[in-house]
């Protein structure tokens, strides 16, 4: 029996606004030196507190939606999502339910397109730690992260392999970093991933039916984990379905050390979040002028950038690598302004680390100048005294009798080695001259 993995990815991205989503507290939970130092009545959920929405967070969510090819809702609102958990101070999370800011987008990857169902804005929760206090097992809560702006990106179940999932998440990561709206650091928790995984039987596939269950897998803190967890989970579920059974609908975590997923929470019955529009927050209405202005402000995105560079002559594999580093983008774009340079060669030199780009200089023009100087130095040949050259070549012949013998016996490629040995002694000598001389003297 063959099973088709049916995978959807849910990504949460913490926006790096200065202040939190619904209050003016500092938004920097990861670097906070102590717990519970960035709180106020609002994000601590005190009696009588009221939320007011962060304008920039809304704008940046729309930016993300546009970058992911989404439509932007002209009318949107916040809703309350109810559940009880110690890190959720109000007993509800302010989120978006039926009228999210962005919807119906698409992201291209080398494994195929993935449709984006929605991109919406909500507030993050506090953080829970588990520790023993006075000999008893307790949980400790820190609200520094409470109410930090959080963007949720949900896909359709269009992903059918672990590799595709990894490529997709890398793409999202790249785009978010391009927009400079989040550090999107999976280790620090500013980007969090969950996968909804099920496996489809041949019959289901034939009748275009999705499986009746899905398993949510969390704690996927790196691209590597995603790939491994999906492989494992698909295998686990396939085994169950082979027997004719249906896997439990549940939430599982990924344990990388043990290379397995484990049950975290049974999701037999769907949670009843009792969504309703948040009465404390007036709704949002956008004009197309406003949205187009945000679209104008988008930087050129990775795919378009790679295309631009390859058209200018950069080798595709070099372009892909360089495009992955937002710092490099400005540099390469500036290089392209110089018409008299070999951009393909320089790009390769950077990728192969034969030139190191010095980012300590603040001005991109200075960075580029230094870069060009270094590149030129690589191609520069040292002027050499004829007698010195002959003497050195002889030295190299004496020190490497086997290489000489090989060359004479027909292994012409050994000349590269001999050239290298000469250059080591004398520096960067004009290649053509060197070949001629070695050939002469050998």
């Amino acid at each position, binding site marked *: 029996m063959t099973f088709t993995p049916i995978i959807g990815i849910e990504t949460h991205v913490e926006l790096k606004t200065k202040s939190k989503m619904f*209050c003016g*507290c500092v938004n920097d939970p990861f670097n906070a030196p102590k*717990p519970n130092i960035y709180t*106020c009545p609002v994000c601590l959920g005190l009696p009588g507190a009221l939320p007011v929405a962060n*304008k920039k967070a809304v704008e940046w969510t729309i930016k993300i939606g546009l970058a992911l090819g989404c439509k932007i809702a002209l009318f949107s609102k916040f809703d309350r999502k109810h559940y009880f958990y110690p890190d959720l101070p109000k007993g509800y999370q302010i989120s978006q339910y039926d009228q999210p800011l962005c919807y119906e987008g698409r992201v291209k990857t080398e494994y195929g397109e993935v449709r984006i169902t929605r991109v919406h804005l909500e507030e993050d929760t506090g953080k829970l730690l588990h520790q023993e206090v006075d000999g008893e*097992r307790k949980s*400790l809560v820190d609200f520094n992260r409470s109410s930090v702006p959080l963007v949720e990106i949900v896909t359709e179940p269009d992903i059918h392999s672990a590799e595709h999932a990894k490529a997709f998440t890398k793409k999202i990561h790249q785009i978010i970093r391009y927009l400079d709206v989040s550090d999107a650091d999976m280790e620090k928790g500013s980007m969090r991933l969950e996968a909804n995984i099920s496996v489809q039987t041949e019959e289901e596939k034939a009748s275009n039916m999705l499986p009746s269950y899905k398993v949510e897998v*969390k704690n996927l803190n790196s691209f590597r984990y995603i790939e491994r967890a999906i492989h494992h989970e698909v295998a686990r579920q396939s085994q169950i379905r082979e027997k004719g059974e249906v896997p439990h609908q549940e939430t599982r975590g990924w344990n990388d050390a043990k290379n397995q997923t484990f049950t*975290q929470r049974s999701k037999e019955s769907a949670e009843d979040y009792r969504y309703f529009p948040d009465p404390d927050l007036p709704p949002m209405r956008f004009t197309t002028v406003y949205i187009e202005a945000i679209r104008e402000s988008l930087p050129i995105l990775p795919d378009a950038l790679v295309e631009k560079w390859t058209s200018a002559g950069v080798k595709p594999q070099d372009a892909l690598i360089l495009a992955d580093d937002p710092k490099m983008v400005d540099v390469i774009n500036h290089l392209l302004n110089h018409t008299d340079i070999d951009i393909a060669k320089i790009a390769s030199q950077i990728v192969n680390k034969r030139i190191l780009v010095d980012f300590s200089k603040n001005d991109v023009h200075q960075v580029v100048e230094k870069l060009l100087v270094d590149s030129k130095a690589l191609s520069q040949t040292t002027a050499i005294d004829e007698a010195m050259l002959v003497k050195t070549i002889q030295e190299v012949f004496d020190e490497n009798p086997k290489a000489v013998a090989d060359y004479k016996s027909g292994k012409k490629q050994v000349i590269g080695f001999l050239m290298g040995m000469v250059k080591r002694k004398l520096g960067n000598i004009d290649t053509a001259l060197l070949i001629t001389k070695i050939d002469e003297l050998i």
Partner: protein
Amino acid sequence: MSAISTKTTAHIASLANLPLSEKEIQTLTPQLDSVVSYTTKTSQLNTDAVEETAQVTGLENIFREDEVDTSRMFSQEEALANARQTHKGFFVVPAVLEER
């Protein structure tokens, strides 16, 4: 019109995180039923072509600028001042076993 059963009461109490004793469930059920049944009076109204009103302010796009407001921020002591139990700057709760 189905009456509210004790099973419903128990389920609602669990959704609402209200710890109720068996006795309370028994007492509350008919009380809830009487009020809820009364409210079904609204089904007499014709609301087919009517839009919902969630807000009466008529306001839209009320935002705050992305600025830090130190005047409202608490010190750690202020934040923890009313808690039943704290430990090294954290709020303490009974160990939570299920992850979310």
